[in-house]
């Protein structure tokens, strides 16, 4: 079936780990990462995202991003930064009841060694303050390298639980 999503890799965290890596990007197609019910071990954490090269996360200062923060309880705001060591596009979440991050990332040009790698992000989070926040934005990894996957973690502490799946597009 043309346009069908096919699962490339998945990780279900049921016992806490510090990071999750999904690899298997080996074509110039657009890929998608789905994150479901991602919960940190420590309160007030946001997911940080890095590209992987040959399975190893790249933590150089080549991550730029910008996003809109749509908040259910107060005025919308914006976030942006350049030359960071990861993308910080998601909302802070916590360890309270029903607090988690859920979202989709689309990955562009990852396999192409002569182009920058781009992501778009849309997410829905119950924050560490118990409020609804949805972010929408994008990021670029400003290095012309071939990236084979994505690495996700919190800046502090473990990922307590969550499901992470990398999809490709079947032609």
């Amino acid at each position: 079936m043309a346009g069908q999503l096919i699962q490339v890799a998945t990780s279900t965290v049921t016992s806490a780990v510090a990071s999750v890596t999904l690899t298997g990007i080996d074509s110039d197609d657009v890929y998608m990462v789905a994150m479901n019910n991602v919960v940190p071990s420590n309160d007030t954490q946001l997911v940080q995202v890095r590209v992987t090269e040959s399975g190893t996360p790249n933590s150089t200062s080549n991550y730029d991003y910008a996003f809109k923060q749509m908040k259910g309880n107060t005025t919308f705001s914006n976030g942006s930064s350049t030359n960071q060591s990861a993308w910080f596009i998601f909302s802070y979440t916590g360890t309270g009841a029903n607090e988690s991050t859920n979202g989709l990332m689309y990955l562009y040009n990852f396999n192409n060694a002569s182009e920058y790698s781009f992501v778009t992000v849309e997410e829905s989070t119950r924050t560490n303050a118990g409020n609804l926040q949805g972010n929408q934005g994008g990021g670029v990894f400003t290095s012309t390298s071939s990236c084979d996957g994505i690495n996700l973690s919190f800046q502090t502490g473990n990922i307590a639980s969550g499901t992470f799946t990398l999809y490709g597009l079947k032609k």
Partner: protein
Amino acid sequence: MATLEELQVEAAAEIEAAKPLFKQVNNERLEFSDADYAQAVTDLANSKWNDQQFGYIQARQEAYGSVQDQLDMMYWDKVNGTDLWKEHIDTVKADNPKPA
């Protein structure tokens, strides 16, 4: 106010105490490599630095309340001859001080 170097030492001690740490690669659970541990120290130190230097910004944004609510406070201050909005802002700033 801690320096970044001091926070790196603090972060290294915390990561050492937290060992072993694990990563999940395509659903396979593996212990961190030396490089992973080194990156975890860097990330933790940077997080502590950002919280120390810039954490007050998000804390103030959360505590100020919406623009609509603040405008409503200003309106009723005008009507009632009170100073509640300024007192609210003063409290938020005092509770979340900007680092020196």
